């Protein structure tokens, strides 16, 4: 009997996470990149003209998107070595399971980055996070699901092309616009102490994006892997 879709997906995700845990290179590199990016923004900032509370959501989400791209690059990049992808394709599992497994590993990877970047932004830009922190993490997770769904698909595509490093951001960034927009607007409302209900229209965009693109990317992924 073939194992169920989600069980197979988890096996694939665990494989990717095990590789990452044993080498630890990519995760640390992306973390340093993210914090470095947050610090670099400081030098492009006139604190007398723009309040930290207005700047921070933009910094957080732009840096998060870019570090997400870096980590997604590696998702299918690791399968190129020794033609590991062929072995993965030979395995008697659904292509959808490969996608969901890869996406799950990427989600955990990206969530790990968020756990460091959100407090870093709060610390370096002196933000009054406090009680809003759990809500902010919840929104970040919703945003990350959409980002990872689209990014995992494009990573599989870009890995097989010339220009892979250039193509992934070029294809992904237009798709990240609704995510950056929804997440940054919600964040700035939270930071301004406005009621969560006001941010609901933006969160609806995020949730709808997750549903539409998680479904669409899972369904179109098998076409990417055809031989």
């Amino acid at each position, binding site marked *: 009997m073939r194992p169920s879709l989600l069980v197979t997906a988890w096996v694939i995700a665990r494989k990717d996470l095990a590789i990452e845990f044993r080498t630890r290179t990519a995760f640390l590199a992306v973390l340093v990149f993210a914090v470095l990016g947050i610090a670099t923004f400081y030098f492009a900032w006139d604190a007398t003209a723009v309040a930290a509370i207005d700047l921070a959501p933009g910094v957080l989400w732009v840096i998060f998107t870019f570090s997400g791209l870096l980590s997604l690059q590696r998702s299918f990049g690791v399968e190129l070595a020794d033609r590991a992808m062929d072995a993965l394709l030979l395995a008697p599992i659904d292509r959808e399971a490969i996608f969901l497994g890869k996406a799950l590993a990427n989600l955990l990877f990206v969530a790990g980055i968020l756990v460091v970047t959100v407090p870093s932004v709060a610390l370096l830009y002196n933000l009054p996070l406090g009680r809003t922190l759990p809500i902010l993490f919840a929104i970040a997770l919703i945003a990350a699901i959409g980002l990872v769904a689209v990014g995992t*698909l494009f990573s599989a*595509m870009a890995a*097989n*092309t010339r220009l892979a490093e250039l193509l992934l951001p070029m294809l992904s960034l237009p798709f990240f616009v609704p995510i950056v927009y929804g997440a940054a607007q919600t964040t700035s409302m939270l930071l301004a102490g406005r009621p969560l209900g006001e941010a609901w229209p933006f969160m609806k965009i995020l949730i709808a994006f997750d549903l539409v693109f998680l479904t669409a*990317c899972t369904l179109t992924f098998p076409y*990417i892997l*055809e031989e």
Partner: protein
Amino acid sequence: MTSRALPDDAGAASPVIADVETRPLFDWLFGVAVVAMVAAYVRAVFFTPVEALQGAAQKIYYVHVPAALSAYLALGIVALMSIVYLWLRDERADRLAESSGEVALVFLTAVLTTGPLWGKPIWGTWWTWDARLTLTLFLWFLTAGYLVLRGAVDDAGMRARYSAVIGILAALLIPFIHLSVYLFNTLHPKPILLKPDKPSMPNEMVVTFFGFFIACALLCVALIRARYRYGVARDALRAMDLAEEGE
């Protein structure tokens, strides 16, 4: 997998190559489109009254709107052909999507250059993040990305599948971008967005507009057709090269 335009014994006797060689250099549809375009310009510039409030700047409208409609037409073909390709695996659908994508980029570029030229004297700014402007800009980015992707994949079947997937996903993305900007603007209204309502135009202007619309649509179709024919010849030549290498 994909059906080939050429029979297996494709060689010097390939019907596609023979067709290309005997085809007249003059493309009649393209010729008609260019004549129509010139006529539409002449009418818009010399034989259409100047608008009372906006002055000569309003004449950009005759190029801008038909170009946008032609771009939408071409992009619609890309999205439709992407679905058709994944469904039927017919390489003609892929070639039509490729041709329409390139032509769409040309028309979108025309829209994005004529728009600011009009916006500066009328709105007082080259650019504003209005829903329609933003959407057009991102359509341009998506189309450019689509074409760069096509150029970065060597295998024909893989290129067709990848670009079809992008074509479908981009069509799904458009409502989200539109919704994002729409929400943004309702929450933060900007007075500059007052887009002049289309006035009940005098008949002469309406005729000029429709003339331009037809000329633009003709040019769009003629360009797609020419680009498609080029694609057929290019693929036939490539298949011939491959056949020779195989021998």
